[in-house]
């Protein structure tokens, strides 16, 4: 039994942590949250330089040719630092889609620039509020022209292209759509977590190229969501870990009634429960990483349990962080709300908790 990351993978993680501690303290997240920039461009360039964007992109397409275990380690660290960059959209979604379903020509066109950060990609699936499955998608492609609306699209305002799920002649399919064309109107939306940007995309006869087999969009989208969910679970895990450590630290340093707040069982027992949720999130995320890296038949189930536990852990810990900080936790000045917002942004990005739970029951 060797249900753990290797020393090399842990070293890669440490390198990422060192870099991000230096380059992306929470003040960087706050700078994006409070400012006009959609993401931190210097950090994006840095992530490209570190080789993170192309971690799993094969070397022949300009990537590092590592596996998903390595990418998971980087994702955890990006989560820990609440990195304000479109990493998830471009790496977990767009790059995965191209690696999995792209033709050689499409890979040549997109992957090298995804790896070096010159292009940003995203995944446009959702069209309206609600827990909607792919059956409800109404965006249409006819004669290679896409029409319809996608909302919300993570990083849709800054992405160069999107993988779009739309109904073609043979049913639901995935398409590659460059977003800098006249048939595309992008509207940046106010975000619950302004350190990550989102947009509404309206397509009016935009040029779209088929990605993967026509009519196989539902299965492809489902697989893509599973892959992204595992990687996102590591980002959620990293955020939850940082959130937990900061909360522990605060309750140890804060005194009330002549004692550290962390000495009261009302706090200790909740911290113990939070730690259990966090450790289970780690364990389930590891299982997801194992399933993803080996393309195991367990991936659909493993992705669900990784996603569900990571989402629940981060939700719990981020709201307890505010509660345990007391009044200051509710201020703009303290960092608690950065985690509270990011928890919901990550938790909603690939579909709601309820939707993943529903899927899981079919996959048990």
């Amino acid at each position, binding site marked *: *039994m060797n249900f753990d990351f290797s020393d090399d993978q842990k070293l890669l993680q440490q390198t990422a942590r060192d870099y991000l501690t230096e380059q992306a303290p929470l003040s960087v997240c706050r700078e994006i949250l409070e400012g006009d920039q959609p993401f931190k461009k210097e950090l994006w360039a840095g992530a490209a330089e570190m080789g993170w964007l192309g971690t799993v992109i094969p070397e022949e397409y300009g990537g590092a040719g590592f596996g998903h275990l390595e990418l998971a380690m980087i994702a955890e660290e990006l989560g820990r630092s609440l990195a304000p960059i479109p990493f998830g959209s471009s790496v977990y979604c767009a790059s995965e889609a191209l690696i999995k379903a792209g033709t050689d020509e499409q890979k040549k066109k997109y992957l090298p620039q995804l790896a070096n950060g010159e292009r940003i990609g995203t995944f446009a699936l959702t069209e309206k509020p609600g827990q909607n499955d792919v059956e409800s998608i109404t965006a249409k492609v006819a004669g290679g022209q896409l029409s319809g609306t996608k909302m919300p699209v993570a990083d849709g305002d800054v992405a160069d292209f999107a993988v779009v799920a739309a109904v073609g002649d043979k049913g639901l399919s995935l398409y590659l759509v460059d977003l800098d064309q006249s048939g595309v109107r992008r509207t940046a939306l106010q975000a619950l977590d302004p350190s990550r940007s989102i947009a509404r995309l309206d397509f009016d006869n935009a040029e779209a190229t088929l990605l993967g087999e026509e009519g196989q969009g539902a299965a492809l989208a489902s697989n893509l969501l599973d892959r992204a969910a595992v990687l996102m679970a590591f980002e959620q895990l990293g955020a939850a870990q940082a959130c937990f450590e900061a909360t522990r630290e605060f309750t140890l340093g804060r005194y009330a009634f002549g004692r550290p707040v962390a000495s009261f069982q009302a706090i200790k027992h909740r911290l113990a429960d939070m730690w259990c949720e966090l450790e*289970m999130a780690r364990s389930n995320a590891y299982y997801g990483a194992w399933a993803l890296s080996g393309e195991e038949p367990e991936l659909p189930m493993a992705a669900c349990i990784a996603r569900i536990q990571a989402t629940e852990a981060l939700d719990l810990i981020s709201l307890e962080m505010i509660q345990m900080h007391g009044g200051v936790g509710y201020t703009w000045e303290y960092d608690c709300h950065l985690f509270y917002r990011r928890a919901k942004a990550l938790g909603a990005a690939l579909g709601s908790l309820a939707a993943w739970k529903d899927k899981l029951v079919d996959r048990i």
Partner: protein
Amino acid sequence: MDFNDTPEEAAFRAEARSWLDANADLKKAGDAAADVLGERATPEIVKQAQAWQKKKADGGWACLTWPKEYGGRGVTPIQNVIWNQEESRYNTPPNIFGIGLGMCGPTILTHGNEEQKKRWIPEMMTGQKIWCQLFSEPSAGSDLAGLRSTAVRDGDDWIVNGQKIWTTGAHFCEWGILVVRSDPNAAKHAGLTYFVVDMNSPGVEIRPITQINGGQGFNEVFFTDVRIPDSQRLDAVGNGWQVALTTLMNERASIGGGSGADFGELINLAKSVEINGRPALEDSAVRQQIARFYTRSKGVAMTGNRTLSALSQGKTPGPESSLGKLVGAKNAQDMAAFAMELQGAAGMTLDPNETPAQGEWQGRYLGIPGLRIAGGTDEILRNIISERVLGLPPESRADKGIAFKDIPTGPPSR
């Protein structure tokens, strides 16, 4: 990252399996489930269990982690886990030796003198003599060091008086490990001494306790002027707490997580009962709950796999393994309650002929509260995690730095 054995582990597993194949039958569906509290230990079952233990000892498969000179095999902790995994696939008698071999034996091996080891270990290992643990008292459960049974020196003997409780299997045990207060004027933890007691000694009275599920796995044990020779004292007078900690650490190692939740059963139940004319499994609220139970159950299992990986790498798992029982027992309780909820009004039946799954869920519902208390309550486990894993400050205490006899106490509970 993988779930595979190392070549050495695989070889050990194959060796274990080949011995088991030659000496036992694989479990079939319908075989009795594990009986963790020893509730079905009739005299006949005790004999079967002893015969199986003897067979293992003769084959060199008993007490694997113990040193070879005491009849063990001197294997690594991970090899011991592999043996347990393999043995659990076979239909063997209930393990009534868990307390003796899992807790008493390791304590004697750590704190006993040579003569004591030679006297007790061989018969314990072969299952000829069964052991129990006499720690908890009516007024000392989670606060074990608050125990009040006394031992007073009398020549070469000690005279013991008092009451122990929650003693699993006392009614079929020959020997027990006992912690008592030898000095009420010393501070709480300093006044304790640890003994081995012959359960057939005059003055020992055993009364079974009936649990809420009707089972009788535990006992009350009363001591009235029981004589224990000083040669049966483990370690120094006043050192009982240190010895007890050795026992308790081994208890946690042997109780471990795993609630044995069977999702096939829960899914089948949700398919077979209806909500408004449709299978409950199609109901959204039902699906949300099942997914939650499953995710948490996997979370416990996968955390266990991380612990096994650490063992496999030669590391010693610490207090973080409290997670398995803390989360697992509550999750199992919630699942049982939910399964009864799915049955509607039939949830209040226990009649095997009229109740889904022959009342198995109801039975579990009545049994599980014990799991959340035995071997460290949920609350104690949270203290352990918060203090020993997370490094949070210990409780502020009213019993520190004063003689035991001066510690404030409430009236007896019963």
